[in-house]
């Protein structure tokens, strides 16, 4: 009798564990569980968690070079902070169509001080038009929009021959984006207007980018994306420096990419022109990569050169005459669906007597120190 009482609850536990034993009970239980889960699901739908999202990204990067030329900020001492960054983004939906997006980025190269990289209010008119106001990205390059998000890029670092030409990643202003289909081609047009103040370093001081105005167009067809962009601004030196005095400048670029899931090819070319003594440039790159399971090995050729050397006054020549070729080989390895490891070796040469566009590669007399450099980079990139 006693034994039966002990066995009874045990039998009940067994029955619920081995659902096949008591089909009606277990089915009812499963149904109840499902209804409960549905209720929870229903109640969370359209709730705060649906209107608000927090995302982040992290890059931990180490780089070392064979000399002190300063390519990508790296020298002979291994550097863990240059290129490392942490970003947090919050998106808050005010209505179905209107939201606020803010992105904070802390960079190792700035001693991890936090900067507001994006902060805008966007309104989606639900007919393909989206307008945004606030702090926005200058959409100069194919990867401008996710310049900070290493995980979204194939390389350990985007080719600096092109991506460092304009030392400005965001501006304050407005933009309008229009998405539409032209047959099988998905078209995105974007136009922006605004201004920015940037500290461009000791030599040029703080620069006011007035009246930033421009547009870009992107055409996606099957595995191909073609993009073209034109932006102009007027540069004016602030506080002490008189280097720029209302100098008009423009940037024009084209890009083409192909990605069929295995083969990856990306190429961009751009020209930039600044009135006065500052460098006018031509630069570009081509990257080829191929996905083999979790690995994406790639090679890149990139170049940068100044096109106005003959017009430059002598005192500015050593600093603003640039010439450089860069050859990279590297691989991306997807550790998991949100974590990637990248390794890269870049060899740069063809400086042709100039600094190679590397400001720390000139001695006090303005002579070239190194005629080439090799940089090794390892990068961990995560999104969460």
């Amino acid at each position, binding site marked *: 009798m006693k034994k039966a009482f002990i066995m009874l609850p045990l039998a009940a536990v067994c029955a619920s564990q081995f659902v096949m034993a008591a089909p009606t009970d277990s089915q009812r239980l499963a149904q109840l569980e*499902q209804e409960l889960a549905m209720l929870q699901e229903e109640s969370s739908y359209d709730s705060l968690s649906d209107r608000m999202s927090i995302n982040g990204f992290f890059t931990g990067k180490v780089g070392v070079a064979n000399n002190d030329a300063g390519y990508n900020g790296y020298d002979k001492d291994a550097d863990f902070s240059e290129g490392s960054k942490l970003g947090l983004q919050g998106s808050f939906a005010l209505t179905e169509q209107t939201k606020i997006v803010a992105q904070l980025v802390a960079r190792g190269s700035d001693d991890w001080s936090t900067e507001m990289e994006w902060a805008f209010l966007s309104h989606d008119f639900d007919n393909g038009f989206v307008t945004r106001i606030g702090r926005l990205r200058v959409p100069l390059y194919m990867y401008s929009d996710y310049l900070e998000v290493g995980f979204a890029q194939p390389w350990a670092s985007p080719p600096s021959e092109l991506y460092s030409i304009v030392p400005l990643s965001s501006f304050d202003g407005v933009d309008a984006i229009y998405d539409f289909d032209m047959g099988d081609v998905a078209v995105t047009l974007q136009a922006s207007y605004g201004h920015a103040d940037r500290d461009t370093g000791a030599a040029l001081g703080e620069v006011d980018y007035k009246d930033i105005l421009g547009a870009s167009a992107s055409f996606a067809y099957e595995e191909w994306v073609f993009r073209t962009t034109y932006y102009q601004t007027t540069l004016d030196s602030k506080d002490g420096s008189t280097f720029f005095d209302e100098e008009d400048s423009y940037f024009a670029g084209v890009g083409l990419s192909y990605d069929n899931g295995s083969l990856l090819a990306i190429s961009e070319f751009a020209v930039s022109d600044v009135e006065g003594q500052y460098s006018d440039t031509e630069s570009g790159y081509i990257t080829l990569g191929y996905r083999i399971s979790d690995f994406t090995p790639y090679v890149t050729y990139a170049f940068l050169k100044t096109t106005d050397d003959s017009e430059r006054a002598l005192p500015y020549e050593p600093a603003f005459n640039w010439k450089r070729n860069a050859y990279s080989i590297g691989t991306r390895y997807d550790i998991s669906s949100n974590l990637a490891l990248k390794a890269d070796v870049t060899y740069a040469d063809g400086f042709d007597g100039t600094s190679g566009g590397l400001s720390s590669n000139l001695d006090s007399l303005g002579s070239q120190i190194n005629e080439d450099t090799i940089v090794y980079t390892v990068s961990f990139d995560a999104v969460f």
Partner: protein
Amino acid sequence: MKLLAKVALTAALISGVAQAGVVVIVNPTGPDSLSKAQVSKLYLGKSKKLPNGAKAQVIEQASGSAIRGEFHGGVTGKSDSQLQAYWSRLVFTGKGKPPKTIGSSSLIKSQVASHANAIAYIDSSEVDDSVKVVFTP
């Protein structure tokens, strides 16, 4: 005897694989069929509406699940990490966010059965009258 068992097991496995497969489902009141391109666009956020103009409620299976791999392999052609990279490009520019993920096929089915504009994918063996199959990759 052992060989026979092996043959029987292999046959069972093959027939199992041949019978089961991922199918795209919608609410019974939803569209009658969708093309691969339409499904792919919805799952990549490139289009946000069903053919009838209603805003689609797109539902994903859990990241890393076999069915998710099978679906994306046959429709968008992207692996889990490629999808993550793709969505991070949209998320970190404030341009979009990935579809809502629900971790159980039976819950997904009941969501689709109770939401007119929902679209999801499940194993064909789980399909019943509460939902409608609109595409088989």
